[in-house]
């Protein structure tokens, strides 16, 4: 187990370095760049421009810029935003809570509902429920998230008036209930596609396990159907799902960015779009590294959890 962990940590570190190099290079290949917006200012002279580039360190070769960026990162300095001069970490931390809240609640909804649909689809295979779930999953997978968002706003906000159309809370009302009220629609909309994916995988995993001999053994012992299902079938079927959860994490993050835009949710999605618009490279790189760490950590944690749960790996 320690060897396995060491191995995975080393792989993760290498992966992060590669991601940062690619991200940094690609960002600097894009025409325009941080100086282009100053160029539009009629009061700017070429001299001013050069001085500014010098100040921001943008006149040096890109690899020097990269190494300096890495050096500072390792010392906990993620750089300063070009836009408002605030440290990148401060900028990101203003938005991180909103995004994590949205991702977390969506993940909980997707796993809970998806698992239930998947198990029921497998135990009642070819029933009306199963067919409905299959068709529903196909619909959820083929329609983009923002469309569901817009339809949701139209129906539940404009027509029925049950739910707010956007934002994370009503200004002046910071109560938990108010947050939850605002959270319902974005998190459900974001969860839809993941419920679809999760339920399909869960159905297959359950069917795989249900036909195994040890399930028959449990029945032959006189174990109740409920316990056979919950303990023997679902327990084993969830193993591959842990890995899936790790793999799905980046998809939930990207989904969250889109959903935030639709619901004017003050998270990292909007920060990302705004920063790209302003060519605020330090913030963009910060966000990129943050999502890379999240993705890699998600997979790493999933692998560790599988290893902890499955005695065949834990004790091997």
């Amino acid at each position: 187990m320690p060897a396995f962990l060491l191995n995975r940590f080393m792989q993760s570190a290498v992966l992060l370095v590669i991601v940062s190099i690619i991200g940094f290079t690609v960002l600097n290949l894009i025409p325009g760049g941080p100086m282009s917006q100053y160029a539009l200012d009629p009061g700017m002279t070429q001299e001013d421009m050069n001085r500014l580039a010098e100040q921001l360190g943008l006149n040096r070769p890109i690899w020097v810029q990269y190494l300096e960026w890495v050096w500072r990162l390792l010392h906990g300095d993620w750089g300063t935003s070009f836009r408002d001069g605030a440290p990148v970490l401060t900028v990101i931390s203003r938005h991180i809570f909103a995004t994590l809240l949205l991702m977390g609640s969506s993940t909980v909804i997707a796993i809970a509902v998806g698992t239930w649909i998947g198990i029921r689809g497998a135990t009642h295979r070819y029933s009306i429920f199963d067919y409905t779930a299959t068709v529903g999953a196909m619909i959820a997978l083929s329609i983009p998230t923002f469309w569901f968002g817009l339809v949701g706003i139209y129906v539940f906000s404009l027509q029925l008036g049950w739910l707010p159309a956007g934002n994370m809370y009503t200004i002046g009302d910071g109560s938990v209930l108010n947050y939850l009220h605002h959270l319902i629609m974005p998190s459900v909309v974001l969860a839809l596609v993941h419920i679809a994916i999760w339920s399909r995988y869960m159905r297959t995993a359950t069917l795989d396990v249900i036909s195994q001999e040890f399930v028959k053994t449990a029945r032959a012992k006189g174990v109740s159907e409920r316990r056979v299902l919950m303990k023997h079938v679902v327990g084993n079927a969830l193993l591959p799902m842990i890995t899936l959860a790790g793999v799905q994490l980046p998809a939930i993050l990207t989904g969250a960015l889109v959903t935030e835009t639709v619901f004017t949710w003050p998270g990292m999605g909007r920060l990302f779009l705004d920063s790209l618009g302003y060519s605020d490279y330090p913030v963009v790189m910060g966000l990129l590294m943050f999502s890379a760490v999240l993705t890699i950590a998600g997979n790493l944690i999933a692998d560790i959890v599988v290893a902890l749960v499955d005695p065949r790996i834990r004790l091997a």
Partner: protein
Amino acid sequence: MTANPDTDDSQKSALSVRGLTVTLPDGMERAHAVKDVSFDLERGQILCVIGESGSGKSVTANTIMGLLPRVIGVSAGSIMLDGRDIIGMDAESLRDLRGRVVSMIFQDPLSALNPLMTVGAQVDEAMRAHGIGTPASRRKRAVELLTEVGLPDPALMYSQYPFRLSGGQRQRVMIAMALALEPSILIADEPTTALDVTTQAQILELIRDIQRRKGMSVLFITHDFGVVAEIADSVVVMEKGHVVEQGTADQVLKSPEHPYTKRLIAAVPHLTDKDRPSLQAKGSGTVLQVEGLTKTYRSGSALLRSLRVVPAVREVSFELASGRTLGVVGESGSGKSSLGRLLTKLMDCDGGRILFEGRDIAPMAEAEFRPLRQRIQMIFQDPFASLNPRATIGRILTVGPIAHGMPYAKAREDARALLDLVGLDAGAFGRYPHEFSGGQRQRIGIARALMFKPTLLVADEAVSALDVSIQAQILQLLDKIQRETGVSMIFITHDLRVASQICDDIAVMQRGRVVEMGPPSQIFLNPKSDYTRELVAAIPGERDERHALAAAEG
């Protein structure tokens, strides 16, 4: 006793099955899984139900347990258990009977235990499911049970996970679970089929011993008459869902009446002391000479100190003359399959020489070996997995030779001739694998191997997946082919009885080494090594034969 169940007093029987008919869903190959099946399981007896695949023996067992899949339904008959008919009983009452009154153990111990639960928790569950005992008393009882089935260090075993246990140990755990509530009936569905022969002998011994001590009634399902001879008090023979014959073990084994029973018994391979008559070798001389062949499996990495080294084949040497068959016999993990893979160069060896027709093929690179590859062909174990389901038989047979440059017309002509040789009609050429039975598929596999006119055939467990009557036919076919083509054969098998049928010499392998080599007469009658003696002694149902042979030998 059970010869005429209709006049039998069913109160005496632990279990009484009358006119049982189980219907299969539409579109299956026959309408009934079992039809009008009647038999009695007497108290304190072992009743063997024997039949080949598709005979309905497992369906019968599952019906008694109330474990039939929902799509299969009982359409007629009764199953009386302690004076109650369990057909039509509600699900909850059936559940209550399972594990408490009737217990069951299954064929494959590797998949019959939940991999995520400890052995102890699974034994405990058998009692807990019926609300018996407290956690502490159940724990004590579970350890007792593990002791009773002969598991080493039961207290430690209690907290082990199944993957740490061998197949035989897992089957003992299954038996411990089945015995937890002292049921009156134990149903064993091929419980030793997946086990090595020495392990099989131990498990059979255990089942018989427990049955005697507890006075349990055992319904034992098997396809092996050797096993029947070992443990049965009475026998029910099934064919295609019908009971064709039943009686005491002696009656059925010694003087079978039904032609199907006679055929089955005749097809059972027996040990012979007669060595195979030496074939007129077409080209005499040595085809294969192996010297000091060695292979070690390594996994993990030395860097992280998790390196695992398993010696699979150790210093194996032998010689194979043209037109002869060498049997390689061993239990699982003995290295016999690894040896086969080395000889066909599906895997590279770590040391030693493989002289094929005088040339050492061991160090050859793939490109150099390629022209020789045609001359060494393989026959695989699983006739279902080894044929591409999307290719016609014609394509399966001709694709190899065409790849090696044979014109299509010639390949097709050869293929048709070979189909005829292996006993299939030429019409098979355009059909797909799923249209054939297991035995027919194995014939196709043999034809495929022969397409290249090989000088060496390596058959890895080529008849192990087949029913005994089909097995006999395939063995005859291989014998015939060898006589006609003079091909040499390496015949890898776990079954000593099969090896004795077809081999000129037998090499017994244990932990990667050849512990003994010689003609069948030596291996079976005068084994030189203890291990061989142990293996031969474990063969089910051969005790009488061995005594007879030894007596004849003097």
